[in-house]
């Protein structure tokens, strides 16, 4: 799990007045539940261990009942939820491991050092399974880019994530960067990691075999990230020096790199029975989870734990979140080999205990027993809360999805000229090129990046095969704020569509649910509706959810964030030579629009730029149509009928068209039949649409294939020249729109060079970054 993501707890300042369990973030009911499970009162150390393990972050106590409803079965799934990362077979004896996690709260406190360990944490989740990390995607959301605080956070997070990922040598190949004022006080830092493994090396985070050794290796343990439990320190020491108890952890990517190599070597040489990374709740979590998964117990001796600082209290050793550590379960006769591997990689390593048959996590210091807790009580049998869900007031004001509302089909004032709107959208912070940010990441290390950040899904070839992995992340938070079911379902549709348009078959879904305080019924309703949408969409598309992460309490004095279900998808392309890219490729190619525009501008970038209220109604999603569209485009790619394929999403049709033109360095001339209104047809973000191009002689085949899948398709123009020309035609165009007061008369006619300029300059300008290099 993510390190340092413990939710905010009651300030421990008044420790003497507040009962210890409450200061540790446990409610009175939870204390009773602990007494039930122990059959006695917990001591202070035990209470500290429960405090961290029963935190929302470690226990999923609010979200567990919801997550149970998600589909988890699917073709080739080797490991699903409950394991450290999802693992899906890709043939040839290989499998892909992937997961997404959050590092939101620490990043808000200290963007650089806070964000960096988030990368380390998710990478450990991948290599702990026996997979070599091959790609990272970073999805992040910040407040208004004009705010100095946002700029400070963006800069720090980018440096932190980059500094870590670049050093460990895993390419950052994609992700998201979204600005919305709701994230001003609480940025979201979600990181997805993908790894490749030979399936025979799949390793479980379990502690089988009583008598086996519990071996801790990696960095020494210090007081880092003790967080809420530090209340125990203030209770213990009369004059506590707070500078000695930092809760900010400093990541050491160099140590992580050594840890990757050492761990994979241990696994490939068959030296470990089980392996788990240390993240939140440190040794407490690693020992109880591995024991619980194997139905065993673990007894550890604190004196054996290598420390970085003198005079650490037992609870500090037990809950420290010091980074870059691993717990291995090792047969006694193999320990010498394990120690030799660690030594070779320069990593401290120590036997800190052994596996027992009694099912308890037992903590000793020398001869003294300090704590004894059933492993299950800390993990699988942790408390579960069935929270109250209530839809917020505003929900009732919003029209049904797709409901056309008069206000929304108007272009903004400057929209007398849709070309100007297009330029404004391309240069807007959420749609402009992300180059200024992703250039700070190494996206090509490992020499397998076929398509890196910048243009849709990331493509990583699988060395030694003709295959490639295709990955994308997406979250539609603005629609989720109006209709959380729809927001989540749209997020799944968009992420999978991004993968499918390359020709790849989506394999599975991971997700990071970033929501507010679950004890508020309205916030919990948002979460439960989003999980329902996630499940419905995945079932409709036939995809398993193989894992994920839940980050709650994303609220600041400025308010709650937009509900943000971040979706990560990994797909498989059987033959990388058939890869379809989004850029227009050749003069004279036909341009086709697949799917049709539907009304509803709420949540669109157009609405944001035009300042329209989200109550207008979002676009509807037909999951069956989406499934058919993805099947169509994959088949078209397989038959090599496509020169390019780009999905219509942020900024709508016009932006999709412009991007394909900019990336291809080619102009286009199309004629768009306006069905609904110019704003909806040009800039609306209704789903299940593509802009594709093809050689003219392939067009009839494409049309026939689309008909087979019952997907609307229409030839709208050709690639050529150096301008983007869109003539508007049809019932909804000029005349009719004018009658309704929309006043749009013009076609779009802009040089591609101008589009490119707007798109390239938008982000550095929004962030106030000088245009250096």
């Amino acid at each position, binding site marked *: 799990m993510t390190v340092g993501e413990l939710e905010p707890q009651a300030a421990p300042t008044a420790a003497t007045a507040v009962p210890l369990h409450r200061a540790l973030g446990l409610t009175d009911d939870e204390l009773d539940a602990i007494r039930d499970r122990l059959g006695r009162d917990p001591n202070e150390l035990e209470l500290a261990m429960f405090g961290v393990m029963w935190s929302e972050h470690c226990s999923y106590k609010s979200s567990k009942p919801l997550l149970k409803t998600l589909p988890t079965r699917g073709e080739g799934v080797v490991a699903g939820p409950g394991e450290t990362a999802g693992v899906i077979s890709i043939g040839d004896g290989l499998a892909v491991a992937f997961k997404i996690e959050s590092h939101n709260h620490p990043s808000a*406190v200290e963007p*650089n*050092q806070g964000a960096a360990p988030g990368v380390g944490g998710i990478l450990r989740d991948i290599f702990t399974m026996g997979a070599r990390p091959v790609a990272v995607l970073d999805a992040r959301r910040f407040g208004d880019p004009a705010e100095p605080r946002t700029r400070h956070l963006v800069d720090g997070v980018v440096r932190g994530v980059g500094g870590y990922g670049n050093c460990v040598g895993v390419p950052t190949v994609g992700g998201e960067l979204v600005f919305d004022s709701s994230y001003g006080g609480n940025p979201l830092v979600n990181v997805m990691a993908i790894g490749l493994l030979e399936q025979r090396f799949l390793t479980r985070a379990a502690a089988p075999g009583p008598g086996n050794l519990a071996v801790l290796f990696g960095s020494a343990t*210090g007081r880092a990230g003790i967080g809420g439990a530090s209340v125990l320190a203030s209770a213990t020491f009369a004059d506590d020096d707070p*500078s*000695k108890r930092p809760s900010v952890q*400093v990541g*050491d990517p*160099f140590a992580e790199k050594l840890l990757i190599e050492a761990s994979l070597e241990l696994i490939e040489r068959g030296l470990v029975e089980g392996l788990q990374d240390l993240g939140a709740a440190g040794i407490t979590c690693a020992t109880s989870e591995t024991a619980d998964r194997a139905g065993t117990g673990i007894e550890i001796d604190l004196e054996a734990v290598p420390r970085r*600082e003198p005079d650490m209290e037992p609870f500090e050793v037990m809950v420290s979140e010091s980074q870059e550590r691993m717990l291995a379960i090792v047969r006694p006769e193999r320990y010498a080999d394990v120690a030799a591997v660690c030594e070779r990689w320069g990593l401290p390593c120590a036997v800190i205990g052994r596996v027992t048959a009694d099912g308890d996590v037992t903590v000793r210091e020398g001869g003294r027993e300090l704590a004894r807790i059933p492993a299950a009580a800390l993990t699988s049998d942790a408390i579960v809360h069935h929270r109250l869900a209530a839809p917020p007031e505003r929900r009732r004001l919003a029209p049904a999805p797709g409901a056309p509302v008069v206000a929304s089909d108007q272009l903004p004032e400057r929209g007398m000229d849709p070309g100007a709107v297009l330029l404004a959208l391309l240069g807007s912070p959420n749609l402009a090129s992300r180059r200024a940010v992703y250039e700070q990441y190494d996206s090509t290390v490992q020499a397998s990046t076929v398509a890196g950040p910048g243009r849709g899904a990331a493509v990583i070839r699988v060395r030694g095969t003709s295959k490639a992995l295709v990955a994308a992340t997406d979250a539609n938070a603005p629609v989720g704020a109006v209709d959380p079911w729809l927001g989540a379902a749209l997020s799944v549709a968009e992420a999978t569509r991004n993968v499918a348009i390359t020709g790849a078959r989506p394999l599975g879904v991971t997700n990071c649910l970033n929501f507010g305080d679950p004890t508020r019924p309205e916030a919990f309703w948002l979460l439960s509706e989003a999980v329902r949408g996630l499940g419905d969409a995945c079932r409709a598309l036939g995809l398993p959810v193989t894992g994920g992460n839940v980050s709650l309490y994303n609220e600041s004095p400025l308010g709650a964030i937009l509900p943000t279900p971040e979706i990560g998808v990994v797909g498989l392309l059987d033959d990388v030579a058939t890869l379809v890219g989004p850029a227009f490729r050749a003069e004279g190619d036909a341009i086709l629009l697949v799917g049709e525009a539907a009304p509803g501008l709420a949540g669109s970038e157009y609405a944001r730029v035009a300042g329209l209220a989200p109550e207008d109604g979002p676009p509807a999603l037909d999951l069956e149509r989406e499934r058919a569209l993805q099947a169509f485009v994959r088949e078209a790619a397989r038959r090599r009928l496509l020169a390019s394929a780009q999905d219509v999403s942020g900024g709508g049709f016009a932006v999709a068209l412009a991007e394909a033109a900019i990336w291809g360095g080619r102009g286009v001339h199309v004629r768009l039949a306006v069905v609904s209104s110019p704003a909806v047809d040009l800039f609306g973000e209704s789903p299940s649409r593509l802009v594709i191009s093809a050689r003219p002689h392939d067009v009839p085949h494409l049309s026939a294939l689309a008909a087979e899948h019952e997907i609307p398709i229409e030839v709208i123009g050709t690639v050529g020249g150096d301008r983007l020309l869109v003539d508007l035609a049809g019932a909804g165009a000029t005349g009719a729109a004018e009658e309704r007061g929309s006043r749009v008369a013009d076609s779009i006619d802009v040089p591609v060079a101008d589009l490119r300029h707007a798109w390239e300059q938008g982000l550095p300008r929004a962030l106030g970054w000088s245009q250096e290099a």
Partner: protein
Amino acid sequence: MTDFRFAVNVLPKPGILDPQGRAVEGSLGHLGVSGVAGVRVGRRVELTVSADAETAARATVDHLAGELLSNPLIESFTVERIG
């Protein structure tokens, strides 16, 4: 106005992991150096402040050191007058 030159020494706080210091210690063997311990790696920033009096100049440096040159969550600093 007089020119005062200061140095700001920024070091990781005690208890904060210092990977650089650790890496330096780890390499001492290769250099054939022994008997060295407690290596901490930080930053040194030297700067000149024009002010009427040293107290005013020092106030500027303290402000800069706390706001810009160090990260108070993980680093502490000291200020020295060097000219």
